[in-house]
C-alpha cells in the first residue's frame, strides 16, 4: 500500500489534467473537491443522477456480497483496518475515494499459487431502491495462479466501490465483470489492476443495465513482462448513461496492453462515453500497446463520445496505436443480407451480433457467453430492432 500512496499535490486538490502522469490520486475523500461537472474527468458524467456519491452522501445501506468460490479459492470478509487493502492502486477520483473512505467491510478472494482453479463468482446485489452503499473487493491471484473470477453486479440503489486485482508474478487472471443492474441503479466503480512480473490479466467489462454506470479500470505494472488485455462490451438503451474510462499506466519495460471496447446504443438519450488513456512512461521501454473503441448507433437520439489518448514519453517502444470509430448501422450490410432473403429484423440482429462476436468469442466461460448472447437478444427484442 505504501508503495503507491501519494501525497496531495502542493498546488491544491483540483489539478488540471494535462498529462495522465500528473493525475491526482488519494485514499482520502477530503483531498478531492466536490466535482461541479466541468472538470475534465467529470464533464461527460451526469452528476445530478449520482445520488450524491460524488458529494458526500452517507451510506444508508449495505450491498450484499456473495461468493461462490471454486475449490482451493479462499474467501475472507475483513474490516477496514486490514493492511492488505489498497495495495493495487489509489483512488483516482472523488467517488472512488469516497468509497474507500466509507466501506465497512471488504471481501478478499485469493486464488491459490501455482494452481489452476475453476471459475469463482462474486455476486454483488445493491442495497435497494433509494439507498446509498459503498463497497470494496480485492481479488488476489497468488504467484503462478491461474483462474477466472466473475463479478456479477445486480439489484437496485446507488453504489460506489473499488475493486482491486493483485496479480502476482507469473499469475494469469481472467476477470469478467457484468453490470446487470436494475433500471434505477447507479454504479461508480474504479478497478485497480496491479500486474507482477510476467503476470497477465484478461479483464472484460460488460455493461447492460443501470441508470448510470461509470467504470474506471486502471492498470499498473510492477515488473517486466506484464500483459493486460482489456475488453469491454456495452449496450445502452434509452436514457442510460454508460461510461468506461480505461487507463493503462506503462511504467515498466517490456510490457504489453491491448484494449478493445465495443458498444451498441439505441433509444432517446442513450449515452455511451469511452475515454481510453494510455501512458508510456520514460522507464517503459519496449512497450507494446493498442486501444480500440467502436460504437454502433442503432437509432436516432443516441450519442457516443469516444476519446482515445496516447501519451508517449519514450521513443524506445515496440508499438503504440489507437483507433476509434462511431457509426450508424451499415445500410449496405443490411441490403446484402436482405438481398439473400433474410428479413430486415433478422438481418439487423445478425449485424449487431456480428459486431459483438469478436468479443463474445473471447469469453472462455460458456455460461457467461450464453448469458451475454441472450442479453443482447433481449436488448434487441426490447426496441424491435
Amino acid at each position, binding site marked *: 500500500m505504501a508503495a503507491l500512496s501519494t501525497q496531495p499535490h502542493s498546488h491544491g486538490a483540483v489539478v488540471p489534467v494535462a498529462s495522465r502522469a500528473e493525475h491526482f490520486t488519494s485514499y482520502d475523500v477530503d483531498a478531492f473537491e466536490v466535482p461541479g461537472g466541468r472538470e475534465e474527468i467529470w464533464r461527460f458524467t451526469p452528476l445530478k443522477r449520482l445520488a450524491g456519491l460524488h458529494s458526500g452522501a452517507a451510506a444508508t445501506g449495505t450491498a450484499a456480497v456473495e461468493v461462490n468460490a471454486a475449490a482451493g479459492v479462499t474467501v475472507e470478509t475483513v474490516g477496514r483496518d486490514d493492511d492488505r487493502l489498497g495495495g493495487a492502486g489509489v483512488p483516482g477520483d472523488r467517488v472512488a475515494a469516497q468509497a474507500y473512505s466509507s466501506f465497512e467491510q471488504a471481501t478478499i478472494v485469493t486464488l491459490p499459487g501455482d494452481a489452476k482453479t475453476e471459475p469463482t463468482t462474486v455476486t454483488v446485489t445493491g442495497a435497494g431502491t433509494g439507498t446509498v452503499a459503498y463497497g470494496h473487493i480485492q481479488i488476489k491471484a497468488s504467484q503462478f495462479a491461474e483462474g477466472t473470477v466473475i463479478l456479477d453486479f445486480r439489484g437496485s440503489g446507488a453504489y460506489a466501490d473499488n475493486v482491486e486485482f493483485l496479480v502476482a508474478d507469473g499469475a494469469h487472471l481472467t476477470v469478467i465483470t457484468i453490470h446487470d443492474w436494475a433500471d434505477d441503479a447507479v454504479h461508480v466503480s474504479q478497478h485497480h489492476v496491479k500486474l507482477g512480473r510476467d503476470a497477465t490479466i484478461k479483464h472484460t467489462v460488460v455493461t447492460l443495465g443501470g441508470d448510470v454506470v461509470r467504470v474506471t479500470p486502471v492498470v499498473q505494472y510492477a515488473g517486466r513482462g506484464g500483459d493486460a488485455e482489456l475488453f469491454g462490451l456495452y449496450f445502452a438503451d434509452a436514457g442510460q448513461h454508460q461510461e468506461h474510462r480505461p487507463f493503462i499506466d506503462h511504467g515498466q519495460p517490456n510490457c504489453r496492453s491491448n484494449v478493445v471496447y465495443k458498444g451498441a446504443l439505441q433509444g432517446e438519450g442513450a449515452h455511451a462515453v469511452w475515454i481510453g488513456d494510455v501512458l508510456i512512461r520514460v522507464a517503459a521501454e519496449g512497450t507494446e500497446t493498442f486501444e480500440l473503441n467502436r460504437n454502433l448507433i442503432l437509432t436516432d437520439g443516441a450519442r457516443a463520445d469516444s476519446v482515445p489518448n496516447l501519451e508517449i514519453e519514450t521513443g524506445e517502444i515496440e508499438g503504440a496505436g489507437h483507433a476509434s470509430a462511431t457509426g450508424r448501422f451499415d*445500410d*449496405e*450490410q443490411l*441490403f*446484402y*443480407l*436482405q*438481398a*439473400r*432473403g*433474410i*428479413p*430486415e429484423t*433478422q*438481418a439487423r440482429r*445478425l*449485424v449487431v*451480433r*456480428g*459486431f*459483438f*462476436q*469478436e468479443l463474445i468469442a473471447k469469453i472462455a466461460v460458456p455460461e457467461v457467453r450464453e448469458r451475454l448472447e441472450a442479453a443482447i437478444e433481449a436488448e434487441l427484442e426490447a426496441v424491435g430492432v
Partner: protein
Amino acid sequence: MATLEIKDLHVSVVSEDAPKEILKGVDLTIKAGETHAIMGPNGSGKSTLSYAIAGHPKYTITSGTVTLDGEDVLEMSVDERARAGLFLAMQYPVEVPGVSMSNFLRTAATAVRGEAPALRHWVKEVKGAMADLDIDPAFAERSVNEGFSGGEKKRHEILQLGLLQPKVAILDETDSGLDVDALRVVSEGVNRYKASGEVGVMLITHYTRILKYIQPDFVHVFANGRIVESGGRELADVLESEGYVKYTGKTEAAALS
C-alpha cells in the same frame, strides 16, 4: 415458367443535390430457360438496372414496372424479392464482420426455402457446393466476405446462387477481376445453375470473354440508360470486334486486347 418482365423502367439516383435519371425506359423480358447478356460501356446504367430490380434503397423508381410471374416486384421489400425468386450476384459483395459464412448461408437458405434445411443434408449440400467451386472448406467459418479476395467473393456469390436456386438470377459483372481459372470455375457454377431447372439469367458484363463459357440466347446492348440494340449471340461477336463506339461515339473496347 418464371418470367421477369421489365417495362419502361425509369430510375433516378439522389446525388449531391438533384436526383439524376440513370435508367431512361428499359424494356426487357426474361423467360425461364433463357440467358440474356446485357452488354454496355462503363457508366451506361447496367449496374443500376440490377440494383433497382433487387431494391437497393439508393435508387428511386420514377416510372415503369417490374413483375415476376405477374407479381409486382417494386411493391416488395428487398428480402421479399429474394424470397419471391430473384437473386443478384453483386459486383462488389459486402463484408459482414462477425457473421460466419455458414451461419449466413443457413439463415438465407432457411428464409428462402421457408423452413430450416435438415442439418445433416445441409452440411453435405454446402460442402459439395463449395467443393464444386474450389472453395476451401475453411471459408465456412470466416466472416461473410471479410478479407476475401475479389475472386473469392465472386465464387461465394455463385455458391449462394447454387444454394438458393432462384427463379431468375442477375449476375452483375461477375466476370470482372477474375483470372482465367476463376472465370472458368465461376462460369461452370452458373452453367450448373442453368442446367438445374427452368431458370432465367440476366448476365451483365462489359466484356465478351465470359460469353465463351456461358452461352447467351440473347445479347442486348445497353447505352445511356436503355437497351439500344438486341440480337443473338452474333451481336456479341460484333461488339468483340467493333467495341461500343457505334453507341457512344467513344472508343471503348468490348474485348480485352
